[in-house]
């Protein structure tokens, strides 16, 4: 279908410390015992997209991710890994691999997206409108609505102003405005409003970081605007802003393409053909605007920025905070369990007597639990040893964790190779990899990590 897929599996991991470390780069952060990247790749594979470029920040991470992908998706996907220097942003990453991009359109997916929004639908919308960029918008995470049943600790982590301000045309097809943060004032363009007539401003939509770009335009923008760092904050808003006054260079390209098509010997007729076609289609405000100047002559160049709004029933969350991490873990084992194709409970967990594992739980392979344990709404990784009288609620326990007897863990994340000695009480804590929690200690809302040596 002449689409190339780029998975941007980098991203700042600051908001996810101490879960993310050198050994566990963000793409490999396990969500319900699968690295988060798995969800994206799985989704793409389901859509029959088997040629991917995965962009990772940093050489080491690149090696790790590459090793994991080749181990997991061998014979299933054709993945190329590109390691780019850190902190060059999403736009920078695309710039770095720009010369690999050859297809007509590029689908850019963020590697931390856990969703069941079909990439095909985005691509189809993009194609149908012949858009320059199509952004996927989804309703603000399900966690907002299903909050009632889960821990109370999440409200405080939710900062106001994380929402996007998105302007849509009345038919909800075109993107008219996109801003990431609420500033005091939001500036709208007058001529855009004038052309569209009516704009719908929504704050309940979230940019899912799945974009379809027209390659030529994307490369053009990346080349010319070398200060652009981020797709979301720079490139997309720029394209949206300039949709009615497409820069000369952009339109120049398109002109050239059209000319290429018109090499047939009937130039005059070709004009008529295109006129018939354009007359037959419903004009978007772009066309109307471009004609406004004087009659038929298309003096003003425009391009289209489309929005694909995922249906409210689809699941779509980005893993960009610890809270999101907790939510995704809960949802993936719970209501959005269709995201995982394989079994939820690993083979042969050893459970002690009178140990109960509630619903929406996941037990990794080879984990052992002692007597009279309680596990509710939690994910427990592989090869964990859990002693007796342990209570794990709303928590994530990664691989190779040893938990002593009598521990109580609530709403916490415990990374790999952590040792909890006896009678530890953790509430809303994050414990970094390899940390050892001393016996009998109690923590609440803290982030524990090994000191970097």
């Amino acid at each position: 279908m002449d689409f190339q897929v780029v998975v941007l599996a980098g991203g700042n991991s600051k908001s996810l410390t101490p879960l993310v470390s050198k050994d566990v780069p963000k793409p490999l952060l396990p969500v319900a015992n699968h690295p988060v990247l798995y969800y994206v790749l799985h989704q793409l594979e389901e859509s029959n997209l088997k040629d991917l470029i995965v962009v990772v920040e940093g050489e080491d991470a690149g090696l790790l991710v590459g090793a994991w992908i080749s181990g997991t998706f061998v014979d299933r996907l054709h993945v190329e890994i590109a390691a780019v220097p850190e902190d060059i942003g999403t736009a920078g990453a695309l710039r770095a691999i720009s010369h690999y991009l050859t297809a007509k359109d590029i689908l850019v997916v963020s590697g931390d997206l856990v969703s069941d929004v079909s990439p095909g639908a985005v691509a189809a919308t993009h194609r149908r409108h012949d858009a320059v960029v199509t952004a996927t918008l989804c309703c603000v995470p399900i966690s907002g609505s299903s909050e009632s049943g889960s821990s109370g600790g999440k409200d405080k982590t939710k900062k106001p102003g994380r929402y996007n301000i998105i302007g849509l045309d009345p038919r909800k097809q075109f993107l008219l405005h996109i801003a990431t943060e609420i500033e005091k004032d939001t500036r709208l363009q007058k001529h855009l409003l004038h052309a569209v007539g009516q704009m719908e401003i929504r704050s309940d939509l979230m940019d899912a970081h799945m974009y379809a770009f027209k390659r030529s335009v994307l490369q053009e923008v990346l080349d010319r605007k070398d200060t652009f760092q981020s797709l979301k904050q720079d490139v997309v808003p720029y394209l949206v802003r300039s949709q009615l006054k497409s820069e000369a260079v952009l339109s120049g390209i398109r002109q050239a393409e059209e000319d290429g098509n018109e090499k047939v010997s009937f130039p005059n007729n070709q004009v008529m053909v295109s006129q018939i076609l354009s007359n037959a289609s419903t004009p978007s405000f772009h066309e109307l605007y471009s004609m406004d100047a004087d009659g038929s002559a298309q003096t003003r160049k425009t391009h289209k920025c489309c929005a694909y709004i995922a249906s409210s029933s689809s699941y779509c969350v980005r893993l960009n905070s610890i809270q999101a991490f907790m939510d995704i873990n809960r949802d993936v084992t719970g209501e959005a369990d269709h995201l995982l194709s394989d079994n939820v409970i690993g083979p042969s967990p050893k459970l002690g007597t009178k140990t109960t594992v509630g619903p929406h739980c996941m037990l990794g392979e080879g984990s052992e639990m002692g007597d009279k344990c309680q596990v509710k709404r939690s994910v427990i990784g592989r090869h964990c040893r859990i002693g007796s009288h342990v209570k794990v609620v709303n928590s994530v326990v990664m691989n190779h964790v040893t938990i002593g007897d009598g521990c109580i863990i609530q709403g916490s994340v415990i990374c790999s190779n952590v040792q909890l000695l006896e009678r530890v009480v953790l509430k809303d804590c994050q414990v970094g990899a390899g940390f050892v929690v001393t016996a009998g200690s109690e923590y609440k809302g803290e982030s524990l990590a090994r000191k970097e040596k």
Partner: protein
Amino acid sequence: MDPRRTARTVSGPKVRQVGFFTPAPPERSISDPPRFQDPIQPPSPSPTQVNDHSPSGNSLSPVMIPPAHHHSDNFLRTALQVTSPTKAFSYSAKTVTIPPENEDVASSFSPGRKVFSAKSPSSFPGVKASSVPASELTTVSVVNLPPGISEKAGGASVEVQNDRPVSAKTLKEKTSKAERRALQEAQRAAKAAAKAEGTKASSAASKVVTSANTKPSKAAKSSSQKNDGSQVAASEKKGGDRAPEKDRKKDAPHPRMQYDDKSRVEKAKKRAVVKQTEARNRVELFRHLPQYEHGTQLPDLETKFFELDPMHPAVYKVGLQYLSGDIRGGNARCIAMFQAFKEAIKDYSTPPEKTLIRDLAARISSYVSFLIECRPLSISMGNAIKFLKNRIAKLPLALSESEAKSTLMLDIDRFINEKIILSEKVIVKHAVTKIQDGDVLLTYGASSVVEMILLHAHELGKHFHVVVVDSRPKLEGQLLLRRLVRKGLSCTHTHVNAVSCIMQDVTRVFLGASSVLSNGTVYSRVGTACVAMVAHAFRVPVLVCCEAYKFHERVQLDSICFNELGNPDAISKVQGREEINYLDGLVNQENLQLLNLIYDATPSDYVSMIITDYGMIPPTSVPVIVREYRRDHLWS
């Protein structure tokens, strides 16, 4: 006038006249011819000579309906054939530009035809000379055969087709034995001629060559044994090229499927690409037409974007645009489809161990069935597809892949340019002569040709007023209006409800058409028939502008057996007016059925004239165009 009337009663019993048949009072029919002359003629003493031909056209009318006596029919046919070219020339003499252009189209487009017509008399001069009726018949059978075959292959849709090839069938039945013999003879002769030609190895006529080489003896034997009837078709079937036949087999059931036939629908669903949930409440009379739950197809198709591997992106895009209604209008859809096919052919490469001709034909067929799933084909598209498949089937085997591809792409370009663009220009030239200063022209909907006519007339400096009549839910007329107003034409806009009020001031009605059928019925956007009838009642001439590639040999008496159902929501909801929600929640009620028809059929009684690229003709002469055009297709 009389023959036409009797003919009509013969062909269609009263029951069939479902649509727009106002029982015309007798004095109307008497006053008809003068009316027909009057409005077109009087303002201009400059003779365009429509009425000269209208009587001849009337007398020719029985052509489409088989009369009782075959010989007279034959005579009429010959007469028609003779008259039609002369007519064209008489026109062309007046309007100056047509003859070269017509010649151009014909010559550039059908080299093969010329070759054939040149060679058949030369290699076999005896046939034509010996039995005039026989040779006359052969051409008829050749013209009518392909639909016959497809019908047999289709099989599914017998009851629908029954009324279509009436003329052909009854004709066959009624031929006397001697004539049948003569016909056989002629065919055998033609085959032998082809064989002789084939030994000379002219690669252009490869189809005929293969047919003659492979099965001549068999065909001859069997034909001598049985009496012809089906035999003509059978021998042709055996001899004919297999690939296109198979395509037809695959192709034919699609557009003609009866959607009230449950088992067939199930089967069709299984192979469908697009998920089609059928709407529950369908109007009884239209159950045989496909009607899907609107809004379910598009998202489903979208999610499958990457999964439809065999589908070419361009084709896919066009399908999406059909489905979402981004492209509409017969010409635009046809052009878009052909451009997509061109892209697909450009990117095509023959898989190993397959031949280009067959594989590409199959590929195109799969594209077509995909497009049908997105939206039923228009008749113009059907004709265009037939043309393309014909070209593919006739590709010489010796051609290399790249050559074959470029040939096909060139063919497509030529089709678009000659059959659509050029013919539109010709139509515009014809039609503009009918516009005088001070005219009030009425048009309905948004036809690309009519728009060009109006714009061209405006450029010529004629002063006239345009009434654009429109109707919900599509309101395409507004787009037309927008473009016209911008060009400085003086316009009136109204909806079809008010057409009877505005018709008093109108001097001419220009209508576009989706198709013109061989009984002169104009198949066009729903509402056209209503406008035409009102115009007829007000004695306003109705000029239908339609390119010849949209003509079809089908005969249709009502707008029921073939039609398209649109989205029923479109009529139950008014866009932009949320407060009109009286039907909210009722849509799925058992006893409410919503009907949103797309097309309707205007009987030829209400059409004064059809303007096409072969000239301005009365609706009764459509079969001539169909036949001539068919021949172009078959032999080019």
